[in-house]
């Protein structure tokens, strides 16, 4: 499987990028030169140093420092954990939730469908920032609130997408055939219909992983995201935003580049997996 997977060079490289990112994220506390979350280790006198500078103690800031004197390199390593965690967790939950609801909606049809789809309509109209703000007001800031806000905006898109495809599939002959075999409804939905809806769904999912990270960054930009002392890649970008015009590009460029590499890798891997798994796609 892996051999087949890496027959494409793109996919091989992407897999290497993603897995090294995961390794770096997991090992961050051991390889990062600084604990960027420990306020007592930060000195504002070291703030906004350009890449490769040293402070008075001779500490080398490989990618420079942010506005609080935080080592950008360490912050990226730590930020990877949060960003990857937020992106995959929220996408996975939103995917499962949305797909299940969309399938049920399409297959059962009628009142259930109408009910579920109107919930979807409602959900789609609530912007993430509003949900996040309400969560912040009710229960404070935190990673879990950001994940909830992202799931809340994303599940509906999966539901709507899978329903659209499933409606088509439901009417195909093979479903009629399995219905004659008196298979259970859930079996028909998840074993027979779902695999045939996977193409648009998986595309949506890979794009949504990127968008989850963007949403997280945007929420931080709007002040309702992660706690400011524990930056993710997105928060690093949001914090670096005010310094882009003043030429302190390193605050946001490096986290931005890491994010781009990561997201492109995820999407290429997603494409490759689809090629290998999808029953109708060319091998």
């Amino acid at each position, binding site marked *: 499987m892996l051999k087949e997977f890496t027959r494409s060079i793109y996919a091989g490289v992407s897999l290497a990028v993603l897995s090294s990112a995961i390794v770096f994220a997991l090992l961050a506390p051991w390889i990062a030169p600084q604990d960027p979350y*420990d*306020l*007592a280790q*930060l*000195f*504002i*006198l070291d*703030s*906004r140093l350009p890449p490769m500078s040293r402070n008075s103690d001779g500490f080398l800031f490989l990618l420079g420092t942010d*506005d*609080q*004197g935080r080592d950008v390199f360490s912050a990226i390593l730590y930020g990877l954990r949060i960003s990857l965690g937020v992106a995959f967790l929220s996408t996975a939950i939103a995917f499962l939730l949305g797909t299940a609801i969309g399938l049920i909606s399409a297959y059962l049809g009628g009142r259930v469908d109408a009910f579920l789809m109107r919930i979807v309509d409602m959900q789609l109209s609530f912007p993430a920032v509003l949900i996040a*703000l309400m969560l*912040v*007001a009710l229960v*404070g*800031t935190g990673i879990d609130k950001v994940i909830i806000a992202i799931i809340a905006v994303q599940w509906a898109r999966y539901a709507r997408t899978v329903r659209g495809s499933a409606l088509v599939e439901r009417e195909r002959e093979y479903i009629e055939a399995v219905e004659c075999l008196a298979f259970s409804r859930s079996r028909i939905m998840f074993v027979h219909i779902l695999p045939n809806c996977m193409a648009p769904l998986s595309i949506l999912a890979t794009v949504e992983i990127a968008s989850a990270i963007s949403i997280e960054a945007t929420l931080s930009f*709007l*002040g*309702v995201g992660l*706690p*400011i*002392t524990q930056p993710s890649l997105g928060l690093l970008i949001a914090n670096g*935003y*005010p*310094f*882009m*015009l*003043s*030429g*302190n*590009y390193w605050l946001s460029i490096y986290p931005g580049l890491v994010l781009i590499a990561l997201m492109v890798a995820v999407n290429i891997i997603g494409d490759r997996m689809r090629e290998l798994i999808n029953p109708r796609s060319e091998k």
Partner: protein
Amino acid sequence: MPLSKLRKATRGLSAAVMLVSCVMSADAAADTLTIGTRSEMTMDPHFFWSTPNRAYNVHLYGSLVRLNNAMRTQPMIASKWILVDETTWDFKIDPAARFHNGSKVTAKDVEASFKRASTLENAAASYKGALRGVASVTAIDTDTVRVKTKKANPALLHQVAQISIIPANIAVSANQGDFISGKAAIGAGPYKFVRFKAGDRLVLERNEAYFGPKAKWDKVVFRVISDDAARVAALLGGDVDLIDYVPPSDVARLKRESGIKVFRSTSDRTMFLIPDVGRNVSPFVTDKDGESMNKNPLQDVRVRKAMAMAIDRKSLVARIMDGAGTPANQNVAPDVLGHAAALPGIKYDVSAAKKLLAEAGYPNGFGLTIHCTNDRYVNDARICQALGQMLARLGLKMKVEALPKAVMFPRIRDPKGDRTSLMLLSFGSGTSGDAGGTLTHTIHTFDKGRGFGTWNVGRYSNANVDAVIEKAVTTLRANDRAKLQSKAISLAIADMAVIPLFYNNVIVASRKGLSYTIYADQSTIADAAVPAN
């Protein structure tokens, strides 16, 4: 930067696109001033009381008196005023004063305007809030307005400066839409309404018939650009002539540009921290391990002094504010009447601070959350985080919570809210025109009924200080009042009722060839900009 390469590579294309984008700033005539402004405007002049709205209104409507850049009062519609007795003020209306429609400004118009401003329905931030202690405003003849105050009220001139004057018939009949369409936008100010596009721009033109000094610009365009970076970009790109609320971090870059000028001056604002001294157990104070504590260390003045000494104000101003401020030793800025000039500075000395903390019984520190807004003051969340590191080095286990003001303010101001243990706040002289505003709102004991201590989030309470503050609020002679206020400040700072951080600056930037006079309350005024030579 890779940008120069990109520029080279795309030079060929640029000519083609230039054709498309040639008409970019149609408003850029020589005597038009285009201002990129942070704040949206409320067109009804009596609906939403805020400093930016006041600034827009001054252009169009005018007021009995107006405030100059140093927040001193100047005649406007009222040419002079007499203090009849301690609580009675007579304002004489300038006989030359005319509304945009040509009719004379009368005392009746003033009376009607004050009435509308304090009774307008639906107004959530009513101008009535500006008229604290005002008992009545009445026309006693065609050109005299009598204002009665409940007690002697030295702030009165600053208060009446907040209220826009419109014709009485409009004050009675106009609805809010009429001000948006411009139908009712008739005032006595130096500029006239041309057009307003919600969320986008307000266009004004010179009122040739203005009774005072002629307006400096034929046409003024206020363009709303609320994002800081976008506003700076608009100036750099030449789309606007002037921008307000320049983020301090962009000042160095702007100064490097040959076509840009930066103006900076002191504001009437001070940033400070409010510790919770009122509660025996404070909700965001824990012991070092995060367990709740049965006492509140912030009630010990030594702890508060230790915290004050652990803050490196110079670095804070230099690094977080990019120099846009001055280290403070009190919560009232130097240019504000009542500032206690004799107070010594607060020394930055971490080891002495640690000793003091140990003396108070906390050699290992304790856990504390600092709360701040992240969308209210310049760099508020960044200041908070930097304070977090400084206090962490004192040995406290710090948490930093930055929240939008929409969440933060109800939490600290709602009587049912649980408030904070340590929070960042900024205060200016506001409508008091002196230290009185800061003192009554943040230092005086919280007293809902009498309207004292509204922002005294830490619930500091000292009867001696209260007495001095209350006396000052009713002292009409400026010198006597300033002495009392200085005394109140000295007493409160001796208690470290609040922990002063720094005095703010106001920064405005313009294209080359303009000169701008900064207003201490951050008002953006078109006529403060003049061609430089």
